[in-house]
Each structure stands twice: as C-alpha cells, then as structure tokens.
C-alpha cells in the first residue's frame, strides 16, 4: 500500500496523516504515545489543516457542539467543502442527513428514522441468517478461507441492496464506489477517479428513475414517497440519501464483522466461550464495537475559535475518532483490554449526539448474526500464519484480507 500524496509522516503530534497505512496499522500506539506525551489533540497541515482530539470528553463535546462544528464535510478530503465544485452547502450538504446541520438535519433524519427503528429491522433476521449460511455453503470444504473476501464484505452489501431495491449482483460495483469515496482520500484526483464518480451517479440516477416509473416495496420507493416540510424530496436529496445509505452501511459493517472474527481467530479462550455460550454474543459484539470501533467521522470548523487551548481556524477539519474515545481510561475501566463480558459499556462506536448512526439497529443485527452463524458452522478456526491480514486505510478501519485456517466445522 502506498503513502498518500503528502508523503511519510515526520511527527505524529504536528504532522499526522490519518489516511496513511502507518496510521491504520499503529493507531492504538499512536494515540497512547500522543496522550502520554501530553498531547490530547494533534494537528497536521495535511488536507489543508486537520485536528485529531483524543479524549472521550473532547470527542463528546465536539459531536454535541453543532453551533461551532459543521457536518458539511463528514469525510476529510484534499479539498475543503467550499472548494468542491457544484457542492450543495450547509445546512443540507450533498448526502443528507450525515452532511446536514440543524435545523435541516432533524427533518432529513426524521423521515428516515421509522425505516430503521427496531420494529422494522428485527424482521430481517431470518434473511440475514440465510445470507450468512449461503456464503459459508459457497466456501465448500476448503480448509483455508478468507473471511473478509468470502464472508464479511458480502453481508452488508447483500442486505442493503435488498432493502434499497438495487440488484444484489452489483455488489462488486458498490464496494468499488465505497472504496472510491472512503479509502482513496489521499490519492490523486485523476481523471479516472472522476470518471468513476460519474459512473456511480449515472447508475443511481438510472435506478431512481426506474423506481419512479415502477414503484415497489423498498427503501428507494419509500424515499420517493417521503416528504420534507410538506413537499416531496428533491431528486438531489433522494439520490444523496441513497448514496449515503449505500456508503454508510457497507464497509462500516464489513469492518465490524471482520474485526470481530479477527479477534476470535486470535483468542481461542474468547472463541470457545462464545461457541459454548451463544447468548454471550450480543455483549461480545458491543465490546468488539468498543475496542475495534470502525468509524472516525469529521467536522468542519465554522469560524476561528479556541478549543481547549488550541487555535482552530475557519474551515479546519476536526476528526471525531470514536475509536480513540472508546479507549479512554477515564471512561472505561481497563480500556485497552478486550473483555467480552464487559458490563458497563457506553461505547461511542455509532457516534454521539444528533447524528447517532441511523443504521445502528441493522448493523448490530448483521454483526450478531454473522458471528453467530460463523461460530456455529466453524467452531474452531485460527489465523493462517502463512498469509497476511491487511487493514483498510482512512476513516473506516477493518480487515480487508482475513486468511483463516478452519480447524473444525459443524
């Protein structure tokens, strides 16, 4: 994996690069070193100026302070939101509600909430169980498998494609576009990349139009019927929200499932406990979400301001590293230890405040079912030491290659 356009990091306190492979590989140590050297908030000039606060308290404070920090740019890029051509600005943003600020945000979010409430999501359980079993059936009798490529990456794609009403067989395309938006943040803005963005937009325009002509019982039709301020959503709003639902749910959940399986492959005691006591899986999933939280979000500073002794400038990026907040000793006892039966666990893997992950009920369902089915079918598995585990870079972190040896199957 290559460095970003900015080159190697010289100092993590003053020149960090959260898009670099080194950050993805060593982030826990980087945070611990920064905090113990008395730097609870790091800075870099990269990406036009970016801050990295590391305590639960600061992350909580920024997430709640929508007066000073805008969601206009939830993913850090080389261009500031105001520099992106034809961009829909605050308070709506290109992909509502994640890119929206109050008061518009509440309306854009409220119209989606009923579709993702527990009572609508729970009935998907059987379907997710069937998807997971089918993926394992497809592995045949091989003793060496890749649990990311053959399992975790497919589950959220197959589920969200069905919910939205998009062709399930286009999964590879969706993952390509997710990668384009989330992992390529430090790459050059080449024509080839821009052409991929256009292809993505054209694909969605085609399917949204198809739903306008042939309404059905799925999320795209639900959005086409939804109203905001007493009127139908604009086409941009509908397409933006479809983009968001595709992007937000795929590599996040893929990462969550992958990190959990990675932990269980390397920790046979925990794995055996869950095989013998499947009713412990929900608590274990919460602990995996805490310890390996997949998602870091970003905000944009609205006006020059002081924050805990540092001078933030208008349009600086501020990262919200929920994974670092989840490892703060002031909030969690023995934060660096993974305890699958942890009782008090107020982790922030799904964010804090008004942007709480809209898909959290679905993500939890998928993670629980994925682990339940995997352990049932493969009660004993371990990491394949002859191959390497690779991790994604950027604001969503999880294993992208997960070579396992299957030692027992049921």
């Amino acid at each position, binding site marked *: 994996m290559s460095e970003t356009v900015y080159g190697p990091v010289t100092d993590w306190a003053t020149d960090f690069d959260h898009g670099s492979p080194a950050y993805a590989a060593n982030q826990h140590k980087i945070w611990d070193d920064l905090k113990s050297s008395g730097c609870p908030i790091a800075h870099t000039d990269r990406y036009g100026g970016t801050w990295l606060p590391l305590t639960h308290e600061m992350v909580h404070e920024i997430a709640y302070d929508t007066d000073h920090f805008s969601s206009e740019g939830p993913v850090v890029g080389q261009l500031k939101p105001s520099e992106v051509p034809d961009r829909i600005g605050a308070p709506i943003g290109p992909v509502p509600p994640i890119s929206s600020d109050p008061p518009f945000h509440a309306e854009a979010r409220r119209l989606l909430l009923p579709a993702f409430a527990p009572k609508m999501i729970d009935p998907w359980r059987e379907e997710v169980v069937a998807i997971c079993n089918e993926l394992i059936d497809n592995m045949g009798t091989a003793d060496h498998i890749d649990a990311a490529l053959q399992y975790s990456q497919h589950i959220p794609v197959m589920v969200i494609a069905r919910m939205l009403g998009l062709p399930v067989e286009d999964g590879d395309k969706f993952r390509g576009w997710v990668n384009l938006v989330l992992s390529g943040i430090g790459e050059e803005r080449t024509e080839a990349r821009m052409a991929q963005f256009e292809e993505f937009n054209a694909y969605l325009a085609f399917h949204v139009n198809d739903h306008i002509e042939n309404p059905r019982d799925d999320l795209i039709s639900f959005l086409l019927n939804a109203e905001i301020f007493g009127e139908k959503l604009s086409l941009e709003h509908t397409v933006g929200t479809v983009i968001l639902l595709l992007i937000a749910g795929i590599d996040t959940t893929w990462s969550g499932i992958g990190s959990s399986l990675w932990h269980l492959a390397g920790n046979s005691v925990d794995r055996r406990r869950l095989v013998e006591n499947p009713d412990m899986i929900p608590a274990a999933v919460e602990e995996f979400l805490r310890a390996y939280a997949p998602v870091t979000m970003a905000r944009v500073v609205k006006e020059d301001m002081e924050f805990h002794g540092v001078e933030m400038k208008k349009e600086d990026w501020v990262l919200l590293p929920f994974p670092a907040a989840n490892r703060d000793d002031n909030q969690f006892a023995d934060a660096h230890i993974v305890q699958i039966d942890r009782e008090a666990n107020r982790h922030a893997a799904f964010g804090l405040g*008004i942007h709480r992950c809209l898909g959290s009920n679905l993500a939890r369902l998928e993670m629980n079912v994925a682990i339940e089915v995997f352990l049932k079918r493969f009660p004993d598995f371990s990491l394949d030491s002859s191959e390497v585990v690779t991790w994604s870079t950027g604001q969503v972190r999880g294993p992208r290659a997960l070579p396992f040896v299957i030692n027992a199957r049921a």
Partner: protein
Amino acid sequence: MRVHVDPSKCQGHNRCYALAPELFDVDDLGNAFELNDGVVPAGLEDKARLALANCPEFAISIEE
C-alpha cells in the same frame, strides 16, 4: 426504584431496550421511553442499573 429516559438526550441507540425490555420500549422513530411510569418491579433493579451504565448519551436516570 424508578427509571427515566430524558427525551431531549436520548438519540435512540436502543441499548436500554435491548438490555431491559421489561423496563423500556421504543417508539416508531426508535427513541426510548420507560414503561410502567418508570416504576422498576422488584428484582429488576440490576437490569435498570445495567441499562443506565450502557446508555452512550447519559440519557437514563435512576431514583432509588
């Protein structure tokens, strides 16, 4: 013992409902509210404390 969800803080993480469905329910938007006026039946006090300790938004309070 009584539990209470502060609706201005609750963001619908649904931890309380998952851990103590005897004490909490969620509305159609996914936001939580306490059942039975918040009165915790005898024997369920630990579940109430567990819900409080798992609410990411610090939205749950308990009156002993």
